[in-house]
């Protein structure tokens, strides 16, 4: 089974880094959708089958915390696994996100941490070796 992933971050460079890291980790990716803020992310969620959401916190228009809250209130999206990847260093805010059922990874991240957390929450394996190109 391939994972359809939605990556939400206001930095296009960061979205590309996260996508590249997930590909290199050997995670079986299907479609990779991208959005620059929470509002656009929710729209993509409503129109597509998504297995995993990776979301930043600090973004214009709608931040990641608000997006996560809205996802959890909607029966169609409330059970989708969410990984927050952010510069956020406040334990108070991180605990709030974890209470809403998200996993948390702080930037700058290591590729191994992303791989391990995604494997853990989706139950889908990734190879330790990068895929042969």
């Amino acid at each position, binding site marked *: 089974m391939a994972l359809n992933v939605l990556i939400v971050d*206001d*930095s*296009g*460079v960061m979205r590309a880094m996260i996508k590249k890291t997930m590909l290199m980790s050997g995670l079986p990716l299907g479609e990779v959708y991208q959005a620059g803020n929470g509002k656009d992310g929710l729209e993509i969620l409503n129109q597509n089958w998504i297995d995993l959401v990776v979301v930043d916190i*600090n973004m214009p228009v709608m931040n990641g915390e608000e997006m996560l809250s809205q996802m959890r209130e909607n029966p169609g999206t409330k059970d989708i696994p969410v990984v927050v990847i952010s*510069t956020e*260093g*406040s*334990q108070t805010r991180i605990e709030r996100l974890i209470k809403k059922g998200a996993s948390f990874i702080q930037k*700058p991240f290591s590729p191994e941490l992303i791989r391990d957390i995604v494997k853990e929450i989706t139950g889908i394996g990734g190879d330790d070796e990068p895929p042969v190109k």
Partner: protein
Amino acid sequence: MNHRLNDVLFNVAEETLEKLAFMFVSREYDREDIDYDSIVAASISFSGPFSGNLVLTISTNCVPELSANMLGVEEDETTPDQQDDALKETLNVICGNILPAIAGKKAVFNITAPFIVNGMEDIKKAVEKVDGKGPASVVRMEMDGEQCDIFLYIDGEIPEDFFND
């Protein structure tokens, strides 16, 4: 200026540049100001237990490499937009990591979107802040023979705790 704060700022900047962009820096203690003619700058503001802003200045020559390393492509494959984006995101990550290092992990800060400061005069203004007091911390670094300086400005006082523990 507080030496302990400088050390913390350097450690966070060094780790971020290395982990995020595979750029290796060394610290320079007694170099002159960065050459304002050939740099780009990004600035980010924060508010919380204390507020202020962080300014990253870097030799223009380093920026294609910074963005290329982050994206995993060749330097000539990066666009000016991606180069600005890479610089802003690097500053964003440094800022997100420096604040809990100063104020502790319980403190909650709001960080605004980083922006690029263009032109020598505006960069000088952002860095020198002629209206206020000087920076709480400055770290000067060298990477691949080029320069990178970071300035931390804090409005009001740095939390007492920072000096105690």
